[in-house]
């Protein structure tokens, strides 16, 4: 048994930290709130580092690495609020690989960027069709539908849709199709909400051509759960950054003659951030292991990771503001940027609440079986 990082994984992580460290991504996160053009394009960095093909097999031109490796990169991106388009691309690329998509090598190289039109697998209490995020409100919306090789529908809040070349569309019955985003009938409306580092789009497809991918229902649903663990891993990275920043400040800020980190209220709250980080990270490990070795547990592990990491992120970003007192709630401070990230992430891809519900659903199904 060995759950420590391998040498290769440490290298992957350090290289990611190094590559992303070359851009002032946190400052850019603030500037982009007022001028979205200030959002740096990190896709070239991703391609150069080989992240685009991380989950594509070697035969397909990729690196053939595992889900946990992808999470390591996502953690580094989360640590510095880097808007790399991996949340859309990686799950889509895994499905394109599984379905032996013709243009796979360009996807693996990153010369063609992919995005998953995030459809939710059936489950929970809402029937057994695939659904997508509604534009607003909590009721789920119908997933796109296909007639022959023509697919139509609207999917909102799609991560990394703006600028994507290949859209992987999942229909209401769980079929996956690869759609060329350049064709007529595809419309992508970029949207920005509260956190300027994340590229989102509302996508409308009007009877566009799609190439049906030969994939199993399980593979399709696991693409959704891959997106869940990437969100979770990003969150863990951000939590670690919040903890580091908060601890540093708690050591140097004095009140009533003592560093504030010597007070139990502050100390225990920071240990609580650590506790939540440890739990969420342990679940990333579970998700990574199950993706390789126990695929039937992946939905449970991924949902638990998303749920746990989401709650950790919410707590950590609020605590970072709180430790700083009033100054932590000002525009020029970094803390609100992490907070904005937490607020938006919590509501994407089904929301952290749905992931929690899926954990219960998986556990209940397990004991019923």
């Amino acid at each position, binding site marked *: 048994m060995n759950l420590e990082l391998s040498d290769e994984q440490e290298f992957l992580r350090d290289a990611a930290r190094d590559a992303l460290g070359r851009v002032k991504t946190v400052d850019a996160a603030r500037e982009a709130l007022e001028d979205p053009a200030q959002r740096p394009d990190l896709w070239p960095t991703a391609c150069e580092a080989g992240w685009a093909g991380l989950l594509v097999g070697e035969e397909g031109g990729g690196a053939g690495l595992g889900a946990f490796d992808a999470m390591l990169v996502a953690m580094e991106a989360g640590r510095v609020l880097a808007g790399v388009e991996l949340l859309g691309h990686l799950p889509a690329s895994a499905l394109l690989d599984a379905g032996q998509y013709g243009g796979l090598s360009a996807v693996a190289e990153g010369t063609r960027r992919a995005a998953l039109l995030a459809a939710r697998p059936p489950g929970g209490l809402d029937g057994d069709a695939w659904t997508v995020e509604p534009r607003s409100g909590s009721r789920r919306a119908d997933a796109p539908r296909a007639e022959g090789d023509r697919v139509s529908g609207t999917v909102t809040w799609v991560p990394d849709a703006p600028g994507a070349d290949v859209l992987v569309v999942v229909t209401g019955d769980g079929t996956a199709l690869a759609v060329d985003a350049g064709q007529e009938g595809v419309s992508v409306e970029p949207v920005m909400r509260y956190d300027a580092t994340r590229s989102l789009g509302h996508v409308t497809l009007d009877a566009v051509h799609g190439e049906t991918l030969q994939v199993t229902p399980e593979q399709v649903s696991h693409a959704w759960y891959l997106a869940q663990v990437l969100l979770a891993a990003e969150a863990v990275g951000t939590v670690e950054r919040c903890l580091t920043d908060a601890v540093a400040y708690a050591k140097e800020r004095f009140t009533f003659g003592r560093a504030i980190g010597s007070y139990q209220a502050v100390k225990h709250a920071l240990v609580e951030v650590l506790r939540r980080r440890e739990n969420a990270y342990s679940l990333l490990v579970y998700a990574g292991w199950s993706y390789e070795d126990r695929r039937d547990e992946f939905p449970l592990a991924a949902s638990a990771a998303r749920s746990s990491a989401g709650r950790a992120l919410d707590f950590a970003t609020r605590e970072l503001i709180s430790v700083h007192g009033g100054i932590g709630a000002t525009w020029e401070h970094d803390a609100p940027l992490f907070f904005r990230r937490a607020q938006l992430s919590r509501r994407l891809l089904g*929301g952290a609440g749905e992931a929690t519900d899926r954990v219960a659903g998986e556990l209940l199904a397990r004991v019923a079986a």
Partner: protein
Amino acid sequence: MDLNDTPEQAAYRERVRGWLAEHASEAPRENLPEEEVVPARRAWQRRLAEAGLAAVTWPKEFGGQGLGPIEQVIIGQEFSDAGVPGILDVIGVGMLGPTIMAHGSDEQKSRYLGPMLHADEVWCQLFSEPAAGSDLAAVQARARQQDDGSWRLSGQKVWTTNAQFSAYGLLLARTDADVPKHKGLTMFIVPMDAEGVTIRGLRQISGEAEFNEVFFDDVRLDPDATVGGVGAGWGTALTTLMFERLTIGSGVEGLGYRPERFAEAIASDPHAAHDREVRRRLGEVGSELLSIRFAGYRLLSQLQSGSIPGPEAGLAKITTVAAAIEAADLVTDVLGPDALSEDDQFAYITSFLPGLKSAGGTEEILRNTIGERVLGLPPEPRLDKGIPFSELRAREREAIS
């Protein structure tokens, strides 16, 4: 137990209502262009002062009505029901004026209180500093007396509401660093247009500048600018803080976070209104916000019977902030990312509340105070007692390096 007015209160309420029926139309309109807001609210305060509605708790000799906090609350309720704003300078009239009445010289009282009441001169409170928030006695802004008796002031203040249009500020400065920190402080009246004063808006999470930073670069103050005596600034500041608690205390009812406001947003999504998890969360925050409403009424009963609310009144703020954060989170969970549009009311709450959490002192310090003063628990060991301020600072620098 009675929530209703006494006959005297009912009569007073009638009078306020009568005045409003006649004059509410003179109040500033909503959605005025930004540059017209302050002039309009100044004029409105002047109108209220003339009608005897601006400073009802001030003694008559200073232009007030010599009434109690209940009458103040009645005015607040009636103005709120009529949809018109109250006075512009709540800080001056509610906290700083009374401080000057208590500690100022006769000249200061006659010079400043009248223009304050009529909003001819708006005031701001210059207490907090970047390194002196909850630990207010740690202020570093430094005033040094000159040979001619005048003062030279340098330093920085922060979280200053209204600074950008204030005529004067009441400022707490250190005048002696070689005595323990509570002892070397003095309170000053500072003209905000003096040379060396710089005001800078401080943007919050939402991007709005709700507060200011104010910088003082060798600002000259007259010899008679001190309030309450040199070295007695801490006592003067405590008076202001006591009035601050009163002002906040009588203005509660949950900062306007009525539970119905959140319920309305949820009711707009019939799916959510039938989701037991959503209902559980709404029920919990709803209970919290309702309890604050009645905690406010209990506080008023206390005020009416002549007692000054104790530090436990601060618990209402903790409850309100926590419940409103949770309520806004819930609504945004239900409505999805669209509720995070910058101009959405719930996104505004989400952005605004984290800063409010530590406004007026952090929750941690408030809990300390209540634990010690209300529950009688023993204090934390204090490492700063009796030590000259200059030495405390030296120790801090050493500990960090």
